[in-house]
Every structure is written in structure tokens, then in C-alpha cells.
């Protein structure tokens, strides 16, 4: 699949913003249990809220860039009952409304904050899952149609948000607030495991062959059409929409290098930083940058490595 930068940035940026909102709500529950937000922690609350909102809005704006006819984007809520894309749009709008409401309630120190927070947390998770299910529901792209897709999207959102939360907490000098170092390490270990499982699962997998796509058996009684099928001609002399959208080819060696880089950036290096370096703002800033860069590589590979079954009809022998 063509790795569209607008969609890659959207999923990473919005994911980070939604993840940050989740950590923010968790921290607010902690403060509420302790009897209110201390003055020293107030800037953390405000800054984290703004950063989360900015990341989500930037992501959503970027996502509209990949529409060929954005004038009709408002119609995308029409098929919530069947389309994950529609569900995602609904969740994103609901999230924006809830985030503003929750922000106002938090500033006023309302007693409703834990409840509006619970709603915001639920919608944050739902939005990330809907984004992932847009891809995971497609039977045409074997590499996307797996339980790993929503799990990795959710873990990446939690990690990006969690690392940003740790950074903001250290940078604003908050005394209280949720200290999430241990949780982050467990999530990083889990992400490493799921990522390696995913890559192992698809390293040699063949889901469909050109023979199956044309219904030609490899062996049949004499005289019947049979044997390995190969393409003679695609019937077009130049690029088509299909070759542009689905024809992206990533060299295997390049893919291997990028996969290693991605695993290093998203999991190994942040784990080492959190384990070995003191949790001060500069260290956490480096961890954040490394992880977000790795998340961008992961999302780019997510598209670049995914093979659509229509490639079979363009001569690829298997997907």
C-alpha cells in the first residue's frame, strides 16, 4: 500500500494526543483520591491538556489532507453502523467535545471531573481502536487483518502519551501527579513482545497465490487448464490508480533494516533510557523523540509492507 504521509502523521499524532489524555485522566483520579490538585501540580494539568488537544487536532487536520474531495468530509458520519471510518470520525468529534467540557470542568475544580474523565478515557480508547479497525477489518490486506493491529495501535498510543506525560511532569516540576515509569517499562516490554510476534507471523506467510486468484489448479487431469500462472501483460501501458495505490514495493533488505530501526527506536532504546538514566526532563525528551520517530517508521512500514490482494492480478505470484 502507498504510505501516505498525511495518514501516517495523523495516526501517530492523534494516537499520542489520545494516549496523553488517558494518562491525564488516570492522574486526575489519583489527585481526586488525594483530595484535590496541589498548586504545584496545576501547570502540569493545564499543559498536558493543551498538548493533548493540539496533537489530536493536528492529526485530524492532517487526515483530511488525504481526501480527494474534502468538501464532503462532513458526510463521513453517515454510516456509523457499518463503517469503522465513520465510527472513528464520530469518536474523534465526540472526543473533541468531551475534551473541551472536561477541560472546563477541571479548571473549575468541579466534583464531576472524575466522571467526565472516565468518559474521556473511554472515548480515547474507542477512537484509537476505531482507527486500527479501519485497517484490521480489511480482508484484502492480510498483513492488516490480525489482532496485532489494534493492540499495537493502542500500545503505541499509550506509550507516546505516557512518555509525553513523564516528560511534561518532569519539565513542569510537578511534585505529585502520576509517576508512570514502572508502567511505561511494562508497556514497552509488552510492545516489544507483540511487535516481534507480528513480524514473526508475517515473515514467510502466503495468504493467497495468483493461481488461487484465477482459480487455476497447479495439477489437473490432462487437457484441463493447470500449472503455475504468470502474467503476460497487465493491459495498460502507463500507471493506473491501482498501481499507484497498491503497487508500492519495498526492497526486502530495506524493509529488514527499517524493521530493526523501528524496534530499536520504539522499544529497546526507550527501555534502556528509562532503566539506566535518571528520569529528568532532558532524558525523557530524548526518549519521547526516539519513540515518536520510531512510531513514524512503524506506521510507514505498516503501509509500505502491506500487500493488497489486487497485486496478484498485476502479476505478483503471492501475497
Amino acid at each position: 500500500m502507498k504510505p501516505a504521509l498525511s495518514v501516517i502523521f495523523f495516526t501517530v499524532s492523534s494516537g499520542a494526543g489520545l494516549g496523553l489524555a488517558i494518562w491525564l485522566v488516570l492522574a486526575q483520579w489519583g489527585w481526586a483520591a488525594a483530595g484535590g490538585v496541589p498548586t504545584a501540580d496545576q501547570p502540569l494539568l493545564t499543559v498536558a491538556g493543551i498538548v493533548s488537544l493540539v496533537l489530536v487536532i493536528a492529526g485530524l487536520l492532517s487526515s483530511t489532507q488525504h481526501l480527494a474531495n474534502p468538501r464532503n468530509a462532513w458526510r463521513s458520519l453517515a454510516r456509523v453502523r457499518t463503517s469503522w471510518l465513520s465510527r472513528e470520525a464520530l469518536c474523534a468529534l465526540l472526543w473533541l467535545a468531551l475534551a473541551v467540557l472536561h477541560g472546563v470542568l477541571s479548571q473549575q475544580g468541579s466534583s464531576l471531573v472524575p466522571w467526565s474523565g472516565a468518559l474521556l478515557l473511554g472515548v480515547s480508547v474507542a477512537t484509537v481502536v476505531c482507527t486500527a479497525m479501519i485497517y484490521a477489518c480489511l480482508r484484502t490486506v492480510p498483513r492488516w487483518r490480525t489482532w496485532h493491529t489494534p493492540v499495537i495501535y493502542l500500545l503505541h498510543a499509550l506509550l507516546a502519551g505516557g512518555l509525553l506525560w513523564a516528560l511534561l511532569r518532569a519539565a513542569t516540576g510537578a511534585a505529585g501527579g502520576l509517576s508512570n515509569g514502572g508502567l511505561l517499562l511494562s508497556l514497552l516490554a509488552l510492545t516489544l513482545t507483540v511487535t516481534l510476534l507480528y513480524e514473526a507471523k508475517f515473515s514467510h506467510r502466503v495468504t493467497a497465490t495468483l493461481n488461487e486468484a484465477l482459480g487455476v489448479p497447479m495439477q489437473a487431469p490432462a487437457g484441463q487448464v493447470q500449472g503455475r500462472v504468470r502474467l503476460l501483460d497487465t493491459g495498460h501501458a502507463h500507471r493506473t490508480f491501482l498501481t499507484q495505490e497498491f503497487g508500492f514495493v519495498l526492497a526486502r533488505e530495506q524493509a529488514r533494516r527499517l524493521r530493526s530501526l523501528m524496534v530499536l527506536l520504539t522499544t529497546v532504546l526507550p527501555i534502556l533510557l528509562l532503566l539506566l538514566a535518571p528520569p529528568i526532563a532532558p532524558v525523557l525528551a530524548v526518549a519521547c523523540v526516539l519513540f515518536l520517530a520510531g512510531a513514524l517508521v512503524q506506521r510507514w512500514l505498516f503501509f509500505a509492507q502491506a500487500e493488497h490482494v489486487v497485486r496478484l492480478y498485476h502479476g505478483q505470484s503471492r501475497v
Partner: protein
Amino acid sequence: MKLGLAIDIDACVGCHACATACKEWNGESLMAGGAPDYDPQGPVPAGVWFNRVRHFEAGDYPDNRTLNVPMSCMHCEQAECVTVCPTGASYKRAEDGIVLIDPEKCMGCNYCAWACPYGARELDEQQGVMRKCTLCVDRIYDTALPEAERQPACVLACPSHARHFGDYDNPASHVSVLARERQGQSLLASLGYKPVNQYLPPRAQAQIPQPKAPPAPDTLKKRLASMVNTLIRL
């Protein structure tokens, strides 16, 4: 009704007349919204085609066969392109099963094209909306046309009668009979989209008798190699 095509791979000669007739009828059709070419006389004549013919070869000589495979919208019973469409622009008609796009509602997100395993949907890069085969819905119901011409343009154009149009809900219809008698196949049936269009596989061919190749002469080199191999095995 379950309208669709039966495509005879045995009869198709791969001439692209169906694809060309489709462009001629739908190129500026108001109903379909057009299948435009962006720069038809230019160096890169790219554009939207509702129907594309691809050419394959199966097997090895002397049992090899050329397969010309025209592919357009299969008007699937389980049309995932409709399921995934967020705006409601893609829809499947209840009365005859034709899958259509309302260009007034399409936002050009490409999601339906991702969901289609057959490459039947192509983006109109000028208008920013998705395009696809309409089964010539603006021909097949047009009572101003003589009855014999109320068929998709591709079917009428086919010089080798490899394309047939009809109602698969009616077991006595021309296409139902063909699909039954010729063991019609669905492409990529394993995905579960239940495509309506059926492909009639090539008929069995008479075998060309081949002279038996004489056994390779027993050369000294070969005998030595076999002796060495025997020694190694010991």
C-alpha cells in the same frame, strides 16, 4: 434480481473491445459521472477504466494456455466496499443488486478501493471522487433502446461472445444456465465477498501427442559421477 455478467475465459481473445466500448459509453456519461482520461494524447495517458483486461499464461509448453481475464465490478452480494464507505456514497441497489457510487456524496477517501479485492474501483483524480462499473444501468433499463440493445456496452461490443449479461436470481436465465453448465467460478471466492459475476473456465483441450524423448546417452562423465555418488553413500 441479481444482475451480473458471465465471462467466458475460453472464448475471450483479449482484444480489449469491451474495455474500449465501456470507455466510449461511460466516458462522459452523466449517470456514471464519467471515466475520464487526464491527458489522452499526452506522454502518460492515464485515466479511469471500469473494466481492464489482463493477460496470463498457465502451465508450461506443451500444456500452456493463455488466459485473457477481463475484470470489472463483480457486484458482490457481500459488497465490503459498501460496508466500509463512511459517507453512504457507495450503495447496493436492493432491486437488482447493482453497486453504484453517488459522486455527490463521495469524499474521495479511497477506503472502498482498499476493500475491493478485484481492483474494480478507481479514483477520478480530476473530480476527486471514486468511479466504478455501473453495469450500464443507464442502458439496461432504457426503453427507448431496442430490447436487444438493453445490455451493458461491453457485452454488446464483445466480438467473440465471451461476455453475457443476465439475472442470476432466475435459474432459467442465459447466464444461470451458462454458469451451471460450464462450472462457472467466482474469483477469490475464499475472501467471502460472493461476487455475482461468474468466470467460465477454459474447456478441456485435446492433448497434442508428444514424441517420447530418447533416454539421455550414458556418458563416461555420468557413469563416473554415479560411481562417486555410490562411494560417498558408503
